[in-house]
């Protein structure tokens, strides 16, 4: 691969579309290498105050809205009715018409930093086995399970870069499920909350591995920003101390500080611009005033997140690629995946809550692999502090009173005694779980919206049931006097951990990008977000997304 610099003068060396986890990294690496970069973001740059602390409208509990975008109005998607177990949104013929905060929409966020503005910052390397799932387990019928074309060792240098340069705290000595670390984390693990100590003893009693959850949080001052003050409103909210490390306060400022990057917010990429020969020359954007403009660049990097990157490619059909750019093999948008989150809640005899945030500190990777007849697995961890209304809606025992003096007493006596453990399941991809576009439904810019259909492979549901049982076992070992919860049914997954929609591979017939995340049919179009993930590990994906984007961007620079 060689990036050919067009003879015509372009507006920018590179345009990066999307300022989230992958896009922030790509912009920083390219700009620091001296390339002129335009970073486009459809959302706004949100202050701490704007994100706010609304317990009913945040990215964790989106009852009536959310706090990190996209705007509720003007950004619909459609969903095949069978893709969700209950009717969601509004009926639209046979389909469901969804707003961004509604279940089934598969939202992450839309703002500078995207999900990283409000995330929990759990920072996991995938395991070596996660990159070769088909070789480890075989391919179950009806699934598109495959190996990544790269392995753990290929990504390792960039995992380390993310850990040191973006900033991850943790205790590498406890990461015994991985090959030994060459470098420790740059910051020690966060203080252990009281309840995490109890859950750790539960794991020890079971003889299961335990580890300290690594997080993209400054446990001590780092990179010229302060350390975590252990507040109680971490996941779903912005950080009051600016100690949570997301794209908005790490990679995007790095890109801007280089002097080579322009950030434009509230700008929507409508479609890729192409020459008469079908070569990508830039992008057509629509700004907040509805002005349409075409901007040119030698290299274009899509970092819109798994759903929107697929949508943008499909909305960019050319005479050469009439079904969408990169879609010659009919692969764009397939294999959409995220994470099933089985878990369970328990009631403890003693108070568990000590108010020390963020909360999720102890986990076990005992069941990520090697589970008899289960394909893969996932980790289980304790939970970040749960807001009272989230406790009421998600973790309240199903048989406890819901109203009257008994209900009030129950919350009063037990809010501090209820705890849950949960974790992401490695999903088994299905080619039918898919992002398409719906030409009948347009967003506020007049662009055809994403249409979502299919569901995860049944093996995912089976793994989730298995992990649900392990969660209950752990809670009992930690001393819970009562445990409850249900394993999840089958549905289309994606959401905050969305990935896989433009998978990476050697063979253009069954993949969209090559092992360096270059779209097979183009020499200057790259993806730097979750979309190239062949599988998504039994771990939160963001450290892998950042590491892969870094590797991709370094490679673009190296071959430029």
């Amino acid at each position, binding site marked *: 691969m060689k990036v050919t610099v067009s003879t015509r003068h372009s507006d920018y060396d590179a345009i990066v579309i999307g300022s989230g986890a992958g896009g922030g990294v790509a912009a920083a690496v390219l700009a620091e290498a001296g390339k002129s970069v335009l970073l486009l973001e459809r959302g706004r740059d949100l202050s701490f105050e704007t994100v706010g602390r609304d317990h009913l409208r945040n990215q964790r509990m989106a009852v009536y809205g959310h706090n990190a975008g996209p705007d509720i109005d003007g950004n619909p998607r459609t969903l095949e009715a069978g893709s969700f177990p209950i009717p969601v949104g509004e009926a639209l013929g046979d389909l469901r018409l969804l707003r961004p905060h509604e279940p089934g929409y598969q939202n992450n966020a839309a703002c500078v930093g995207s999900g990283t503005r409000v995330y929990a910052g759990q920072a996991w390397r995938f395991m070596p086995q996660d990159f070769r799932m088909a070789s480890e387990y075989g391919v179950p019928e009806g699934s598109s399970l495959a190996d990544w074309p790269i392995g753990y060792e290929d990504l390792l240098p960039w995992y380390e870069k993310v850990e040191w340069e973006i900033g991850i705290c943790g205790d590498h000595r406890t990461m015994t499920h991985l090959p030994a670390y060459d470098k420790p984390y740059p910051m020690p693990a966060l203080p252990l909350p009281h309840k995490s100590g109890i859950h750790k003893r539960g794991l020890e009693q079971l003889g299961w591995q335990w580890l300290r959850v690594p997080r993209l949080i400054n446990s001590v001052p780092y990179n010229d920003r302060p350390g975590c003050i252990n507040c*109680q*409103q971490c996941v779903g909210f912005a950080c009051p101390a600016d100690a949570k490390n997301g794209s908005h306060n790490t990679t995007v400022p790095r890109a801007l500080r280089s002097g080579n990057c322009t950030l434009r917010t509230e700008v929507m990429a409508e479609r890729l611009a192409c020459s008469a020969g079908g070569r990508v020359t830039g992008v057509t954007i629509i700004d907040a005033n509805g002005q349409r403009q075409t901007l040119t660049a030698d290299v274009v990097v899509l970092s819109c997140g798994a759903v929107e990157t697929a949508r943008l490619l499909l909305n960019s059909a050319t005479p050469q690629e009439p079904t969408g750019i990169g879609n010659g093999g009919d692969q764009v948008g397939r294999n959409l995946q995220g994470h099933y989150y089985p878990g369970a809640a328990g009631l403890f005899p003693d108070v568990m809550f000590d108010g020390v945030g963020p909360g999720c500190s102890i986990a076990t990777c005992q069941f990520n692999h090697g589970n008899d007849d289960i394909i893969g697995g996932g980790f289980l961890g304790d939970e970040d502090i749960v*807001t*009272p*209304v989230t406790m009421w809606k998600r973790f309240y025992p199903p048989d406890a009173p819901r*109203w009257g003096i008994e209900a009030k007493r129950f919350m*009063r006596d037990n*809010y501090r005694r209820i705890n849950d453990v949960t974790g992401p399941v490695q999903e088994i991809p299905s080619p039918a779980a898919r992002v398409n576009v719906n030409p009948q439904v347009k967003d506020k810019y007049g662009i055809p919206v994403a249409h979502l259909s299919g569901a995860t492979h049944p093996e995912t549901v089976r793994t989730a049931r298995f992990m649900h049982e392990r969660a209950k076992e752990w809670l009992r070992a930690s001393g819970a006097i009562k445990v409850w919860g249900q394993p999840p049914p089958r549905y289309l997954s994606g959401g905050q951990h969305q990935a896989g929609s433009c998978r990476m591979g050697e063979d253009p017939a069954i993949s969209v990008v090559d092992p360096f995340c270059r779209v097979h049919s183009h020499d200057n179009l790259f993806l730097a977000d979750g979309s190239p993930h062949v599988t998504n590990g039994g771990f939160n994906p963001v450290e892998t997304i950042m590491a892969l984007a870094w590797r991709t961007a370094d490679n673009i620079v190296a071959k430029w």
Partner: protein
Amino acid sequence: MKCLRALLDTIIPEDDFPGAWEAGVGDYLGRQLASDLAKLLPAYQAWLAGLDDEARVLHGADFAGISPRQRTALLMRIEQGAVEAAWQIEPAPFFRDIVEHCAEGFYSDPGNGGNRAGIAWRMIGFEVSG
């Protein structure tokens, strides 16, 4: 309004901590019925009318006029779908929705209008810093 207040205070009654109304759940609901839940306003009105009718059929007084014990017993029957009056709206499912809205107002952040001065959080021990 009297009916709504009596209803909310039966769902979350006063003890050594305030009940729903004093904690601001009425304000929460007022805001919500003027915005996110505007579509439910007619349902609320119909349900509250049904509640008063039910109290009159059983006790000869509207809901706010019967004793707290009678209110609780009445809501327990409604929860089971055992009603005497001619309701304009299916009573049991919408009662569950009202309970949910009431809890949202009581337990969510004070910025939403309920949980005045964080009183519900103080009660359950959700301490906020930072």
